[in-house]
């Protein structure tokens, strides 16, 4: 599904990623953990196609194609989804308009016709249920005046509707209270499937109690310094990120 090889990236001459290697197969759930400033968000932004990063070395292969050559919208149309850490508010664009435009963009790439209004609404309603959102959210501006939890649920709603092959969840747990975390996690778990890969980027182990990953990686100073299973996350939680620095500084595995 996704293969990242020796990825180096910098912003304004400052190197943020210093040789990331990561392989994610179909159906797998990976968690990438790391302290602030380790490069987690940079990695997710680069996969989603945000401008402003210099890729100095390495490549990212998605379903056999070079992802880095594609504009952000093409990546999305081909099934790459980024759930944003800070979902942006867009007053004046209704949520339902966004959902429809996004779904139709993906369908167009797949060679499918636009859904008609009734089929679309039926589909959206079933997805709303999954994230326990009220239908009134459809008619508000995108994320406009939403609480932190509502914004994150809205991201998962979009993911559920677009059914991506590869979903990157960037700090989806940040700013969530325990109830909202449960709803969001259940939404994500319902989307786990053998055809779909999920990469969760998180600072805390807490999320991994709800969405149990197959693999856990620790990102530090722009490199993956340790990989393991979910036990690694628990160890990290108990010992803190300094434990990684003390034991594995500069020694990528």
């Amino acid at each position, binding site marked *: 599904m996704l293969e990242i090889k020796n990825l180096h990236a910098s912003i304004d001459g400052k190197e943020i990623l210093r040789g990331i290697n990561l392989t994610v197969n179909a159906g797998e759930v990976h968690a990438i953990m790391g302290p602030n400033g380790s490069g987690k968000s940079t990695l997710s932004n680069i996969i*989603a*196609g*945000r*401008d402003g990063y210099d890729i100095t070395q390495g490549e990212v292969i998605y379903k056999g194609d070079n992802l880095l050559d594609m*504009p*952000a*919208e093409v*990546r*999305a*149309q081909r099934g790459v*989804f*980024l759930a*944003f850490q800070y*979902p*942006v508010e*867009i*007053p*004046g*664009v209704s949520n339902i*308009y*966004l959902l429809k*435009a*996004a779904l139709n*963009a*993906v369908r167009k*790439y797949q060679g499918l016709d636009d859904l008609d209004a009734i089929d679309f609404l039926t589909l959206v309603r079933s997805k709303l249920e999954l994230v326990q959102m009220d239908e009134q959210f459809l008619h508000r*501006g995108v994320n406009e005046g939403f609480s932190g939890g509502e914004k994150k649920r809205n991201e998962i709603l*979009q993911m559920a509707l*677009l059914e991506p092959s590869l979903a990157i969840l960037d700090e989806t747990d940040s700013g969530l209270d325990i109830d909202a975390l449960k709803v969001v996690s259940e939404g994500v778990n319902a989307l786990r499937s053998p055809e779909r890969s999920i990469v969760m980027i998180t600072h805390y182990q807490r999320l991994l109690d709800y969405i149990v990953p197959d693999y856990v990686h620790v990102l530090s100073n722009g490199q993956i310094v340790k990989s393991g299973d979910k036990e690694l996350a628990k160890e990290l939680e108990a010992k803190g990120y300094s434990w990684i620095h003390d034991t594995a500084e500069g020694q990528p595995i």
Partner: protein
Amino acid sequence: MKQLTDLVTPFATIAADKQLAGDDLAWLKKLRLQALDQFNRAGLPAKKQEDWKYTSLWALSQQDFIHQANPSDISAAQCDQVALLQDSYRVVIIDGVYSAEHSQLTGLQTGLTISPLSSGLDQVQSYIGQQVDIEKAGLNALNTLLMNEGVVITVDSDTQVLTPIEILVINTGSTNNLAIHLRNIIVLADHSQLTVIEHYIGLAESTSFTNVVSEVVLKENAELNHYKLQQESSNATHIATLAAKQAANSLWRSSNISLGAKLARNDVHTQLLGEQAHVVMDGLYLADSEQHVDFHTRIDHAVPNTSSEELFKGVLNDNSHAVFNGKVIVHKHAQKTDANQQNHNLLLSRGCEIDSKPEMEIYADDVKCAHGSTVGQINEDQLFFLRARGLDEASARNLLTHAFAVDVLDRIPAEQIRNAFSKVIEQHLPHGGS
């Protein structure tokens, strides 16, 4: 090369030669002579005048205008096609001449009168020139001198008119260099209610000059929803003065949408003369290529306990230039005035220019006044978000531009009109995509 003041002569000749509407009315003749005298003295406004600092009428002054259109007509279907609304009363003016054939004035509600200025002048002596001062602006003097058509609308007290009126001013383009001078008079008696849309549209790329003055009188508790859509051709000069006087408890909702013309200048002015009078003065200008659009607004809070809300938004592209000058004057005894003025601009290119100048003159000491002015570009985070959801860049920019613009429309209560404007704006936006 002609000087600005040279322009007087051809216009004066026209006034002498041309059979103008209401020539048999002594009071009107007198008024026109005053206007001529004033225009002879003042001429067209020049850039040295503060109010015209950023807008030059030099090009206009260099054109020779024709004041009599070639006979021209359009089909009923064409007329329907360009009209903003289908279910409305409609007054149609084609190339400066009232068209009874295309107007829809059957079944007028009791208490409502609509007549073309050319045949209604005898009823409006007490209103003409009451809201605009010909002493101040040369263009108003010119309009007073040459006004030949327009619409006179009156609503009796306690009459709620639910069907909107569209004043559809069509320039067919069949007469190049056509100048038209229109005067609209709208008078709402106590406790009456009305919705009017002034709609100016050019059908072909001819050079033209539209000079319109609309005068509005709102008596106590009257409510007027007053919209304007300007879609003149790209070689047109459109100059408009829109002036109102509001009595106690009256409400004037004005939304002014400027899309067309090479040069568009709008002066919008209201005087809040009775307590609890309220004005919503909104506007939207979209400009591209070499377009120049200028809004000068003025709100006079003349008595205590009046309020105003003003929101103007602009989207500029290419080498276009916009001017917003919004003046709010709170007079000495106008305590408890509540005034809010906002002007927000979205710039889509490096070559465009906005001159935004909010002015508040406050002579009372117990008031609530706020103003804000912003100039920005497309938000990169919003753009990336939409692209990350599969929208191509042009569509995403278009969507964000539309979203920025349309919230001016949110304050239009009638859904039918709001949607019609929204559609026109969508079709007009500078970026392609859907």
